[in-house]
């Protein structure tokens, strides 16, 4: 399968820049995974920009390619073809040292299953990152941002799922990342806890001005975004800007 050029052209998602500077610039991104004899096209040629301080929700069903896109943004994977830049950094080149340094300096990750280190307390999980960052928040402050000041010395096994995910958010933002990438952050949580987690993400985005990308297959969450990008079958199918951002509390799913 080869990327469909006309589809790619029609998928330009250059919505109003809103006066903000561009942080990510993606041009003609394709990703093809060889799966034995066949090749699977995960991304079919995407042009996309992300702007400083915006909260973007990438929406799409499983297998749509949204995770592949997030991996490329996070420097975990490189495109098969096309160019991706984070400011002056070229993320298209497969160089482990460069990509590791990029992740370390600029990116905060939040995972669906939290991925906390079970042997470290909440505070220490955050400190894990602040110890290797240039200008971090104190771990206590990061935990305060996600309303976990009273659970700082608990180990993951002593925390609920929602609390664990908030620790993960604190850990992701403590290094004051330029971008916060969240992969199905509420995927393993119930509605009530999911809302608390989304509130934390929204607050970080608002108070620290961190460019935030959340991927989800849950359309309800799209309402909290500045901009919503729909992805299906490796292509951008629709992009729109929310006129009225809802607060997580108002969201239903």
């Amino acid at each position, binding site marked *: 399968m080869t990327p469909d050029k006309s589809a790619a052209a029609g998928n330009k998602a250059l919505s109003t820049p809103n006066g903000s500077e561009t942080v990510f610039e993606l041009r003609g991104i394709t990703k093809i995974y060889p799966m034995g004899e066949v090749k699977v096209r995960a991304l079919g040629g995407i042009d996309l920009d992300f702007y400083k301080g915006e909260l973007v929700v990438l929406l799409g069903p499983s297998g749509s390619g949204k995770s592949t896109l997030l991996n490329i943004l996070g420097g*975990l994977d490189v495109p098969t073809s096309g160019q991706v830049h984070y400011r002056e950094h070229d993320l298209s080149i497969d160089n482990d040292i460069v990509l590791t340094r990029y992740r*370390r300096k600029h990116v905060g990750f939040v995972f669906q299953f939290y991925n906390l280190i079970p042997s*470290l307390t909440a505070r220490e999980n955050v400190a894990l990152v602040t110890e290797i960052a240039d200008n971090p928040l104190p771990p206590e402050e990061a935990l305060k941002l996600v309303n976990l000041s009273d659970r700082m010395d608990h180990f993951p096994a002593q925390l609920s799922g929602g609390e664990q995910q908030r620790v993960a958010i604190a850990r992701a933002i403590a290094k004051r990342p330029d971008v916060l990438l969240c992969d199905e952050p509420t995927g393993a949580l119930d509605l009530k806890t999911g809302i608390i987690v989304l509130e934390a993400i929204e607050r970080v985005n608002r108070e620290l001005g961190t460019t935030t990308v959340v991927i989800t297959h849950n359309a309800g969450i799209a309402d909290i975004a500045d901009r919503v990008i729909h992805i299906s079958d490796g292509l951008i199918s629709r992009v729109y800007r929310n006129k009225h951002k809802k607060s997580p509390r108002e969201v239903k799913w």
Partner: protein
Amino acid sequence: MTALNRKLRRDLVSMRGQAFAIALVIASGVATLVMSVSTLDSLRLTQSTFYQEYRFAQVFVSLKRAPESLRLRIAEIPGIAKVETRVIAAANLDIEGFPEPVTGQLISIPDSGEPLLNNLYLRRGRLVEPGRNNEVVVGEVFAEAHGFKPGDKIGAIINGRRKALTIVGIAISPEYIYQISPGAIFPDFKRFGILWMGRTPLGAAYDMEGAFNNVVLRLSSDARLNEVLDRLDALLEPYGGLGAYGRKNQISHRYLSEELRQLDQMATIFPVIFLGVAAFLLNIVVSRLVSTQREQIAALKAFGYGNLAISFHYIKLVMLIVLLGVAGGLAAGVWFGKEMSELYMDYYRFPSLTYQLRLGVGINAVLVSTAAAMTGTLYAVRSAVMLRPAEAMRPEPPGIYRESIVERLGLKRLLSQPSRMIIRHIERKPFKAFLSALGISMACAILIVGSFFKDAVDFMIEVQFGLSQREDLSVTFVEPTSRRALYELQHLPGVKYGEAFRAVPARFRFQHRTYRGSIQGVEPGSDLQRLLDADLKPVEPPAAGIMLTDYLGKILGVRPGDRLTVEVLEGSRPIRQITVAALVRQYIGVSGYMRLDTLNRFMGEGNAVSGVNLAMDERHKFEIYDAVKGMPRVAGIVQRKQALKSFYETMGEQILVFAFFNTLLAASIAFGVMYNSARIALSERSRELATLRVMGFTRPEISYILLGELAILTLAAIPLGFVIGRALGAYMILYLQTDLFRIPLIIEPSTYAFAASVVIVSAGISGLIVRRKLDHLDLIAVLKSRE
């Protein structure tokens, strides 16, 4: 192939590194077992066959001189089946092209050739023939050392008279499987030889015509050894009997038995360590495998596979690894066993070695390894199959951690988060961590046990020849001689200094314990033969009383101040009580010591001496040898330093072979434990480590977390290994203590350093292999999967 067997094969392939490491440890255990047991069996079989077929005697006794007619009276003693009287004479030998002194022991065989007991196995040539009075058969090791062949001639000074002897045959005897000169510590094949000569010519040369000075016996099956020995001693006392003894105290037999005992010990200790470690490794590997396959097990159970079928599946996996190890171990064991047996053949001479590997040994190896492996496996498998399918489908809950002791002690601030991860991980499963460290310690201990013998032997020799017996040359006389002999020798050019000594055979009695040995008379202020106290400081023999080697004190159960009965077996044969003045430290041989003049008085003789120790100028040694060899009363000349040197030369090879096997085996344990611990740590923590990589940690940073734990375990294991190694060494030497020698527990720092280095290098190699795997962590899978 069923689907389940296909899964088995793939599981095995995917864990091939670990399977190989475990198989290696099992193989090492099996190899040591097979090696030592097969060598032991082979030597025992070879020994008993040789003893049987060549009619090795059961009782031995030397005496001064008895008429041949006494033979009939000996034969009348109940329990004696066969009697052979012999003449044994010491001689100084002259060998062309070898100017150093060589002592020979001439043993009579019937003129017709074939002895009744202690038959000779002829390697080359023939036995002596009647009527030819200068023919001899020489022992194989001596012949090899000098390259003798039948037809060669050697000179011998027997009883002060020179005789030219012709070698007609080269032979070995069950009596001299291990050829060592009486009183020597190490064999010296060049400077001591056994020669067999016809009874008539030897009797004539040694003034023993129609008489004998040695008897060997074979007992009937219902005989009681001690009774026979007592009656024999009573009968021979008037003829200067030196005390009869059984095989147990026959020198060649003793050395061989000691060697076999040591092998027997090796066949126990080493396989136990190896198989114990293998059981532990299998346990951790299988528990880990089972826990990563929880969901698969649940699915299998959901499909209707029974607990038995599932257990059997994992047991088959373990058995495959065990069989691989056993097969490798058997092959290596047979190879090592043959090599070892060959090495033994250098020292212990048999007609031929019958290498024997009993089927039972192989079966034993399989059974013992299987038992060890099953102990390690069953618990893990059992806990897996006991889970209900629905429960097993759920992932394992996150581990519960807490702050470690180190942190609670207030050192928390000093630790980075990765360091805390390492310490808490170890502390979470302290028993497992302890077992891992113990496994590594065992590797370290094996290395120490395998290499410290050299340190101990070096020390033993340094004490014996550097501090105690310091002469360059020891000359013994045929009979006690007047002190004039000392002055004669002292005046030889090149002799720096001389000291006389007296040695008398004696039996020591205390309560119900007896020991047949000798008393050494030492000159006061002696510099060449010094007695040492427990701190190895020289002590003077007291004017009254006797000093005993500490080990002889132990054998007799005496302490300083006790009164001991001494029965002298020479001269006027006095029997008297003497006070034990002190015990002296001595690692080689045992003896009683008295001041020379005290001993002379005790014996009721003038100032007689048995021999002289000399310090000499190396440059004049050949002149001195020549002069001494020509002296009529000289029975033997011993240069201990030379004997030592040749011993070290021959021992060098053996030590190298042992060291090589040992290092190989210990490294395989260290590697097996390390590699498995590292692989398991990797599989347990790959998710954590990948998460850290996603968060921007570099490869060296996550390697630190993974390998830091191993490094801590290794560093903790090494001192523990030192302690265990030392304890095992102490146990081994305790077991090997005899009146022949006591190996001191001396372990040099270099031996510890060597053991630690091998462990660290093995750890480093397994660390590097695992470290490479870190480069292939799947970062993306981490974002998705939940364990």
